[in-house]
């Protein structure tokens, strides 16, 4: 038993050493010791924006004419929305953030080449609902993202305080 434990500890030490080494060579310190601070002061300045979860991977990060191309061509009939993206038909619906929860978009604050291992993120936008899009299939309550919204309420049950 003792031996097994020792071996495990040894394995962990080696594991940590290797992980740190790899992360460091990538120029990103991600040791278990590092902390990512969330700058809450940015929350007040964050703008409420529309967010869309797209059923495709777009190899791009940055500006796009979302309202001009996407929002402007979106049609809505009885809560079901339709639009097309790159010639493909999408069907979607809007869902709200669970009660007591807020949507945030976080962005890493540039570290200006400092070698500090701790990172900082700020809130760039907020949202209280999102629109998710399926490729061609109509939205239903069985869609995974809709089901994922069950999690916060269940988490409250698993993690809430237990009475004596």
């Amino acid at each position: 038993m003792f031996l097994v434990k020792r071996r495990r500890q040894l394995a962990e030490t080696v594991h940590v050493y290797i992980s740190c080494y790899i992360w460091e060579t990538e120029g990103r310190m991600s040791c278990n010791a590092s902390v990512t601070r969330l700058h809450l002061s940015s929350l007040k300045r964050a703008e409420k924006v529309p967010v869309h979860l797209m059923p495709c991977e777009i190899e791009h990060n940055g500006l796009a004419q979302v309202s001009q191309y996407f929002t402007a061509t979106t049609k809505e009939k009885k809560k079901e929305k339709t639009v097309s993206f790159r010639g493909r038909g999408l069907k979607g619906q809007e869902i709200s953030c669970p009660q007591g929860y807020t949507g945030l978009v976080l962005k890493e604050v540039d570290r200006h080449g400092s070698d500090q291992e701790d990172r900082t993120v700020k809130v760039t936008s907020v949202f209280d609902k999102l629109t998710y899009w399926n490729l061609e299939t109509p939205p239903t309550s069985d869609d995974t993202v809709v089901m994922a919204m069950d999690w916060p309420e269940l988490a409250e049950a698993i993690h809430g305080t237990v009475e004596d």
Partner: protein
Amino acid sequence: MAAKKKRTPNTHNDSWVVIAADSAVETQKHDCDPDFVKLRNPSTDEASLYMLSAGDVQLYEVKAFEEDFHSWFVGQTVQRDGKLLFVTRMDPLYLILPYMIKSGQEGKFQPVDQVVKDDEFPASSRLLSCTRSLTSLHHIAEGKEVGSLKFHRYSQERTLNWLQKKVERTIVALKKKHICVGEGVKSTTYVRVKTESDNQEEDYLRYAHGLISEYISEELSKALLKHLGLPELKSAKETEPPSKKRKLSDKPVEAGEDYTKFNSGDFARKPPKKMTAAQKTLAKVDKSGMKPMSSFFSPKTKAEKK
């Protein structure tokens, strides 16, 4: 049509879409900020991401909803990474528990701040600052006071009673949310001892036990199963369900289950969003449904590559 481009890896992601508990991002109360920290996951014994609210008052868990082929439009921008993070309140006792159990093996009463210490995860000691940590320690440990000093010793009995309450609370939430807890999904991999009828309550109990087990070690999960009066399920292929913990397993890691079998089994039950090659061939051939059979063999139909 032009050949599709290969996907390049998304290496430098620097933004995240998050759904967070309001309490995690309250700005009024404190003049300090919340931190994302890495702590030892009590189930896997490895690093997982958590969040401590401003002043380490509360602990939060970070989970990611992630499906392949997704991206975000956020306002007038594209965010390639399609993950959706959930920041939900977490009971710090789950993370304190493994340290208590470890020190409990010595059988002594000890000060918790000496117990909850982890060189590998320095943020662990901050768990004790959470409001709920010290006030709820009695759920998992016996306490002793000597003067102004407090000492604790792990109690499995208390822990199991506490976990049972957790299971009960979880069942209430599962019922309220109408979450499907039937064993259908597992029926091909597990053989049930009892018949399917009148087992609904047991299904809930087992499901909730499974959820709570995500936050405790496998040993404790098994003890809890016994405590709840549930028999262990037998795997159809092996006598044990797929081994969860390396702690218990001295087998080499490659050994054991053939996961490809699991995969195909599980996929067959999911609504097939991705079509099989055969379906696709059929679909390509004739949309109108009015073509003669011969068109199935016409040269225009692109043959499915083998």
